[in-house]
């Protein structure tokens, strides 16, 4: 057992480091444990927020980097309500997730974006301007400006195949970038010499956890805030449907054909859009109302992704309606806006922003399951629960 052989070194600068990623207010925390006690998601194997807060307060960088607990936390805010010192552990846990995201990221861009609002908004703006430039170039030198004589209902046919390549790039590249961090997360949280090695078979046996958590978000259902799961799940489902359609069936969708209402080409799209509207609307309305602990203290960073998603869906829907209404020119403009909004969201928010949790959270739950299973298999007396 690694613990007790080589004590970790306390790094007193850790707290200042964490605070660059957001609010981490210890406000007189005296480690009473009320927060952990109030949490429905804690188990004997994964305790938070006290433990995570303690790592940060005592400057234990390696154990903090190696902890999965911040991802098991689903931000319900019960701890902040219970805290007798009003230290708001929920917000500190949120900051820790931002801090950890930056640690997992190897290009250094992630850290910059998470630490600085200017960098974040600047990156989004840069991507948007870049897309505008691409659209202008396309029309100036490739097909000419569609000023008049639009004969088809939409006039999108001309964009093939160039639009397919563009779409694939802005969707798959960020996604693959995200996937490259999986190994880094593993090394921080599961690997390393001072941790007991876990047989590969355990990883295989528990692999279903990853898929299950990714698809169901079932952990969120354990959260006391019940209304949240449906909105989040529908939104995720809508996004996945949309992305799948765009990656695998763009040709079918980006067409000048007019389909009947009952055609799957139409109602699949409507359904996905409906899910997104419902989910995003649910989040944004509750955040604006802010009548529950969980929705309090909303920062710009927390809503950029849902807002962009909403705008993307709205502009896409707008283009669709205008096209079916026969307003071809307006539809084209709406489509351009759609691409201008969607692209920054995909290239910035997915790999560097809060969207990245779609990889990290199920991964952490998976690794946690692996750890727990390994602990059960381990010989008695060798507790693995809190191995860091």
């Amino acid at each position, binding site marked *: 057992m690694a*613990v007790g052989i080589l004590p970790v070194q306390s790094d007193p600068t850790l707290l200042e480091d964490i605070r660059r990623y957001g609010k981490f207010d*210890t406000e007189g*925390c005296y480690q009473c444990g009320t927060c952990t006690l109030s949490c429905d998601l804690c188990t004997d194997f994964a305790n938070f927020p006290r433990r995570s807060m303690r790592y940060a307060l*005592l400057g234990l960088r390696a154990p903090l980097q190696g902890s999965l607990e911040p991802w098991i936390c689903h931000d319900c805010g019960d701890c902040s309500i219970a805290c007798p010192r009003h230290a708001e552990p929920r917000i500190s846990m949120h900051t820790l997730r931002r801090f950890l995201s930056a640690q997992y990221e190897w290009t250094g861009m992630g850290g910059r974006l998470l630490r600085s609002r200017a960098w974040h908004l600047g990156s989004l703006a840069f991507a948007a301007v870049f897309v505008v430039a691409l659209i202008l170039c396309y029309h100036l030198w490739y097909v000419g400006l569609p000023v008049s004589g639009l004969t088809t209902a939409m006039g999108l046919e001309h964009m093939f195949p160039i639009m397919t390549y563009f779409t694939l790039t802005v969707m798959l590249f960020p996604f693959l970038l995200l996937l490259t961090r999986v190994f880094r997360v593993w090394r921080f949280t599961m690997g390393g010499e001072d941790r007991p090695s876990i047989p590969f078979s355990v990883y295989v046996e528990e692999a279903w956890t990853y898929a299950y958590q990714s698809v169901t978000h079932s952990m969120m259902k354990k959260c006391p805030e019940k209304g949240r799961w449906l909105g989040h799940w529908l939104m995720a489902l809508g996004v996945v449907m949309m992305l799948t359609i765009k990656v695998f069936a763009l040709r079918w969708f980006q067409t000048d054909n007019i389909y009947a209402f009952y055609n799957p080409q139409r109602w699949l799209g409507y359904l996905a859009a409906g899910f997104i509207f419902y989910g995003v609307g649910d989040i944004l309305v509750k955040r604006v109302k802010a009548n529950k602990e969980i929705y309090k203290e909303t920062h710009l960073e927390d809503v950029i992704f849902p807002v962009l998603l909403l705008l993307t869906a709205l502009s896409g829907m707008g283009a669709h309606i205008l096209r079916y209404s026969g307003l071809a020119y307006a539809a084209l403009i709406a489509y351009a806006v759609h691409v201008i909004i969607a692209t920054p969201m995909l290239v910035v928010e997915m790999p560097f922003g809060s969207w990245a949790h779609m990889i990290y959270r199920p991964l952490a739950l998976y690794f946690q399951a692996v750890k727990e299973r390994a602990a059960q298999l381990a010989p008695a007396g060798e507790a693995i629960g809190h191995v860091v």
Partner: protein
Amino acid sequence: MPTLTINNAQIEVEEGTKLLHAVEKAGVKLPTLCHHKALTPYGACRLCVVEVATPGRPASVQAACSYPALDGISVTTHSERVLRARRIVAELLLARCPESEVVKRIAAELGVKETRITKKNDDCIYCGLCVRMCEERMGRAAIGFTGRGPKKKLQAPFGKHNSVCWTCGACNFICPTGKQVSSLATAGTFDPIRNIFNMDLDSRSATYIPYPQAVPNKAIIDRDTCVHLNYDDCGICEEVCEADAIDFNQKATTVELNVGAVILAPGYRTYDAKGSKDLGYGRLPNVVNAMEFERILSASGPFSGHVLRPSDGQTPKRIGFIQCVGSRDSERDYCSSVCCMYATKEALMAKEHLGENLQCDIFFMDLRAFSKGFEQYYNRAREQGVEYIRCRIPKIEEVPETKNLIINYLAENDKKISREYDLVVLSVGMQPPKEVKAFSEKFGIALNPHDFCHTSVFKPAETSREAIFVAGPFAEPKDIPETVMQASAAAGQVLSLLKDARGTQMTPKVYPPERDVTGEEPRIGVFVCHCGTNIAGVVNVPSVMEYAKTLPNVVYAGANLYTCSNDTQEAIKATINEHHLNRVIVASCTPRTHEPLFRNTMREAGLNAYLFEMANIRDQCSWVHMQEPERATEKSKDLVRMAVAKARLLEPLAQRSIPVNKSGLVIGGGLAGMTAALSLAHQGFNVHLVEKQNELGGNLKHLHYLLGGDQPQAELNRLRLEISRNDRICVYTGAKLEKIDGSIGDFTTTIALDGQTATVKHGTIIVATGAREHHPTEYLYGQHKRVITQRELEERLVTDDAFLKPNGKQKTVVMIQCVGSRDKERPYCSRVCCAEAIKNALKIKELSPGTHVYVLYRDIRTYGFKEEYYTRARQLGVAFVRYEEDRKPEVAPNGQGLQVTVFDQTLGMPFTIAADAVVLSAGIQPHEDNKQLAQLIKVPLNSEGFFLEAHMKLRPVDFMTDGAFLCGLAHSPKNIEETILQAQAAAARASTILSRDRIELEGNISHVVDASCDGCAYCVDTCPYKAISMVEYMWQGGVKKVVETNDSGCKGCGCCQATCPKNGIFVYGFTLAEIEAQIHAALGVS
């Protein structure tokens, strides 16, 4: 006036008297059921029937309650005829209500065991008490009888609930069968008047005596609930009171007093735990607050000392205590200081009541056992199986079926654990008194941010307004000894202020002339005490009392609930006069605490105080033989018999007195000594202030700044200056005490100064010799220059600007707490180190915000308002890491700096800190030479080497030796504020002696029998008080050697008497004859 014959005795009664009263007046008791003194006679139950013979007519059987006492009639109360009639009535009643306790008792008294009539199992015996009560006394008539004969029924009008009933519950109260009569008239539930003294756990009447020991022990009328005062009905108490003491016309009056000073002691208010909703107080019946549990534990409490839980009256097997309820949260950022210890005490007491196997768990955050002896008490509780669990509990859940309680807690290793309890006690904190804002405005005093009274470090008993002082928890949450100290300190401050008026408004107490009992046969009165249930819970008090009556010379024996209460003193005096007693025995508790009280009662009754004897049937019997009540009763009888045997031989002793030398000696010139000296001088007494070092100041010289920002060095200079300017204070520096002779009121002390000696005379002694910082031997102290103590750090922070920033680099400072405290060698807490460490940590953060500070601690004991500095330190990022005693941090050299390894209890892992300095919070240690001084003054030390006071709680600044007092670190570790308070308290206590012209001495002292003493001088060496000396005189032509006793020095310990081979010296009140009589009585020989 009618004259009648009752059982052949003539009796005269007033016109209109009912026969029942006439019979009672004749001293005959009749059974009654439907009769009540305050209600009209009813004649329904026929239990009080008597045989009435009118001249010339045959005798008839009549109900005494309603039959008039006529002139010339002849009444027989217990003839066979009436007895038979009563038995028939009893059988009928028993048939109707076989379950009624009252009916069963009456039947049993009449010798009726079983009824021959078919049982009806009714709950109403038609006595009509409720109906009459409701109509006549409550003025309501909400219930009545309907129907006649077998169809008679107790009902509300039309059998319906009505609005006439006001749910007063008088009907339920008076019903002999316990029927809930009010339910006939109303759907409302009867809400009894809650007894505030028992924390609302039981009820009381509207006319009541607040609690058994109340002073004065008199009944009062609750104006809010009294039916007579509010509605002009009832008035029963006025008729029932035999002393005619009820006066409904009393009005509140305003009294105007002209005073020179005011002491505010409004106390505190316990936190209302209903504010912590999740803990369920007020909602879950088995969640009680600590004050309620205190009452549950008390003999005079709601369950008479039986530990029961409220929901079902069952004995709990598992009790959980939750600490910090209403303390140490963000709304109340202070520690209530007392809860850790009272929870520990209550847990131990509960175990005493319910046995070793009772599970007591205390959920706490930091166990704050900081005061003298507390750490040891805490350790003892742990040894006795009280479990301490470090977790703050946010929520309690109830198991609905059993009303048991579930506590989910987080173990220190982060595991969530669930435990079930039968009873949960909330350790509620102290809050400022109610309406404190209006109170403070009335007096024009400032409050602190927590709404307690504002005081300052150097003037801890003073409010912000001149001549208004404060004592007790109103100034800051504190326990009994600290409250007593502050109260004495405040009194001392007032004495300084009003020294010219001292004694001008006093009426000296005058006792009646002492009755000469010489030659009288002993007439002994024995008063046996229940002491609530303290004695009566184990010992059969009536049987002891009856036994006492059989002893020789005992002419009276009685029993009292609390013999020490005020009204009992009056009763004792009355009994002494009535029975012409000349010896009195109280069989109760210890003479150590209560003998003075009873002796005073003796004097008030005109008897010599020494004709009194105590039998200790509590401390030496009921308390130690709890498990064997029968044998305890036998032992009590033995003890009473011994006391009687001795009392027969008691002789009156003379009250002697000596003049008081009106100057005080203060030993030690630190903060405590200087404060005490100034306080005495301000009260108008001369002071000899002796300091062994060459200048005044003591430990205060090493303090440079305080948590609140006050300047200790400026205060030190002020004190020195004030002392040098005060002509009443004579300072001896570089001095050593050689010898202290004499006793209270008249000491003579020899002081060695630079080879010379000075002799001073004084009436009191105050010990203020202080203590010193522990010299650590661990953590590389003395081996590595970067390992220093807190005191050294403080010095460096003040003098060395570069200390925090050598080479411009940020530093890391690690502080280690409890160095030389709370360990095997020194098992006490040094009390000040936590706050000192935090003070220095905050100073470091102030001077160099970038410096990292770690505090490695065991419990952070920032009690009272010091908690907020602990909070501030955490907010400023000071890292607090807890370690266990058996897993201490390790310090190793690491290049220029140090490496500290500590095992964090929460994370369950060790980690290392690269430290530039390690600061040890070295504890406070008593001076090694305390022992010599203790021998000089003849006072004891405790096992740690600190001076031991007379009583830990009630006499915190007195020594057992009269005339000697203590204060400051010599007593135990404490901070500046507490030192000043204790010093002022000691001065105030000393002035209670110095302000007298003469002092009365104890009569139980040794006496030399000249004729028997042959001057062998065995007793001279034996006397621990050095009160015996040899004298020689010429007698019958030769030199006669005998010993002589110094009356004021003798404490009556009896060592001389035990040593003397010739019966040449004895102690009054403990003569050989008296002791012999006791032994004979004990052994049952004569």
